[in-house]
């Protein structure tokens, strides 16, 4: 508990530039893998310019849930999603929504950095190219530079844009993946344990970056590190055994949770 409190004192959390505009809201969302019910009755709102972290022990359904938000679960054959997820007033699971279009609006960063085996430039330019976002070469250059700058990677790689992205360090690769997600100008960015494969210094950089990005995007992050959730997020949701147990302001969840299971988890008794 003491650790938690200390973590909360960090200055990152002090500026509540919070608007209460809801970007995405999930209603009665459940997920089935074949017959197995991985997630039940999740109701949660994600607000603009806020970072919401999803915490919980392994296998609690938080990664499954975050993958519902950009319909990544569609790529798994046995996976079935019920309920509705409303983004800007439209259910993203309704028939007339194209998952490809949706994913351009909802970017995602994965647990393990997964740069394409292409040059750094092409890694970033991939999304804008397939969406036809730049008609002239100069525009594409600008998008690439802008994205790399936003991801705090520009200074480190500006002289070697033609080198393969796989040659970067783990932390740089992850920031490259964040830049790649930003390049298609999404409105929401999903991060599935973005720092779990990184060392503390690279992690600190990414966390700083997340806080900067929140000025422009709605961010949802899955994390195993409660300190990280406390440092970067304004709101926190706790998942346990496929249920959304509790959600609320991060400070509230970590200092005075209502549910016993949440209390047990954040004090390290379950998980």
């Amino acid at each position, binding site marked *: 508990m003491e650790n938690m409190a200390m973590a909360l004192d960090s200055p990152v959390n002090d500026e509540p530039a919070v608007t209460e505009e809801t970007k995405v809201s999930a209603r009665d969302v459940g997920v089935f893998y074949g017959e197995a019910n991985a997630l039940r009755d999740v109701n949660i709102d994600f607000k603009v310019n806020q970072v919401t972290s999803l915490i919980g022990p392994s296998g609690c359904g938080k990664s499954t849930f975050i993958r519902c938000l950009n319909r990544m679960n569609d*790529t798994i054959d046995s996976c079935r999603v019920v309920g509705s997820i409303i983004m800007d007033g439209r259910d993203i699971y309704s028939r007339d929504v194209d998952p*490809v279009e949706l994913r*351009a609006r909802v970017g995602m*960063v994965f647990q393990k950095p997964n740069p394409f085996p292409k040059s750094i430039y092409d890694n970033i330019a991939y999304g804008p190219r*397939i969406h036809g976002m730049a008609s002239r070469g100069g525009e594409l250059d600008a998008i690439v530079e802008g994205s790399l700058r936003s991801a705090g990677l520009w200074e480190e790689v500006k002289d070697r844009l033609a080198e393969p992205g796989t040659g970067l360090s783990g932390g740089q690769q992850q920031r490259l993946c964040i830049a790649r*997600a930003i390049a*298609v100008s999404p409105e929401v960015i999903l991060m599935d344990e973005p720092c779990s494969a990184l060392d503390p210094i690279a992690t600190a950089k990414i966390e700083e970056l997340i806080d900067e990005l929140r000025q422009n995007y709605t961010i949802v992050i899955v994390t195993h590190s409660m300190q990280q959730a406390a440092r970067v997020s304004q709101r926190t949701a706790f998942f346990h055994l496929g249920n959304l147990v509790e959600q609320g302001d991060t400070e509230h969840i970590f200092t005075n949770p209502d549910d016993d299971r949440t209390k047990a988890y954040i004090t390290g008794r379950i998980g």
Partner: protein
Amino acid sequence: MNTVILLIAILGLTAYGYQIGRRRALGTVNGERRRLHSLPEYHGAYVALWCLVPVVIIVFAWLIFETTIINGILVTSLPTEQQALPKSQLELLLNEIANIAAGTRQGADIDPYKIAAARQYSNLSLVSTGLQVVLVLIAGGVGLALAKRQISARFRSRHSVERMIRIMLVICSTIAILTTIGIVLSLMFEAMRFFAKVSALEFLFGLHWSPQTALRADQVGSTGAFGAVPIFTGTLLITMISMLVAVPVGLMSAIYMAEYATPKVRGIVKPLLEILAGVPTVVYGFFAALTVGPFIRDFGDSVGLSVASESALAAGLVMGIMIIPFVSSLSDDIINAVPQSLRDGAYAVGATRSETVKQVVIPAALPGIVGSILLAVSRAIGETMIVVMAAGLSANLTANPLEAVTTVTVQIVTLLVGDQEFDSAKTLAAFALGLVLFVVTLILNVIALTVVRKYREKYD
């Protein structure tokens, strides 16, 4: 019959050795297994191996030297005029004697000295077999006894057994390697004999191939020209046609199976495709010769083209179909080895499935796919049966797929089939062609395997 009994005796002896080795090991420690350095089974195996190995060596020595020694003794007892016969005729004579001894050659017209020799041959064989049995039993028994005496609680039989097994493994792999080297050397020596008769330059760059050499001065049409370029171009033409079929079809089906098909469909389609690989090439051959060839010819006639009934096109098409499963199944494995995280990354920026395949998966898998195609090419070049049946024999220097061409493999077959003299340039040419074939496919395979391995290292 004798061999079978001997074999049973050896096996029995070995099994007995295993048992007493095991029992003795347990006996030395009064059944407390933990005081033994090695498990009792290793002590048993140690004794059994010491019994088996000398026996096997003796049996092999007999197999190798028996005939030579018996023949040597037999020759010294033959009449002097027969002893002076040239080597090949002497061998014939010895063969005949062996046949008489076995009773397969009978009659009143046999020379008396041959009958005497046959009798001696039977006696020698009998003595030899007896000697072999006695030696085998002694060697087995001695080995067994010596090994048994060594067993004690601290004796490291596991180390010895494992060393012996390692040596056996090394011997096995050496056999494979030596065989390969032997084949290559024999190819090279025969090819060198050919190049002594025909210059390598003429062979590699000559434009005219007509390997029939004249036996008499007045024969016509048997010029004995050995310019292999038409054969090489024929091989190339057919290989290219087959690749034009196999690469697109194989690659597309690999992409379908790896990226689009549901597991259920994939479970059905993949084995079905692999059935193609199980069809004997000779079946493809008559499919090409009797169905595809005439069909192409008739079709050509109907649109006013003259097509040979044994066209390069027919052989190439069918060969391409044969190679589809190689390309598809290798490429499928390689595409599957591309990490899912790359696909996720592409989907997450809003790429469609086809954009993901075209711009992420295929580029990532490309080195491996190139490797699989090279392997397929080397297979197409070496493929024999289809082209023998469907490609024809005339060595035309042409790039027209509708004409008949011939390939390296076809020429090797036609040069060597039937009764041939092995000192004419015509027959020896087959070895030179074989050498070229070997070198080309070897290079292709080495490149392909290097490329594939490099790719594997990247993602594992």
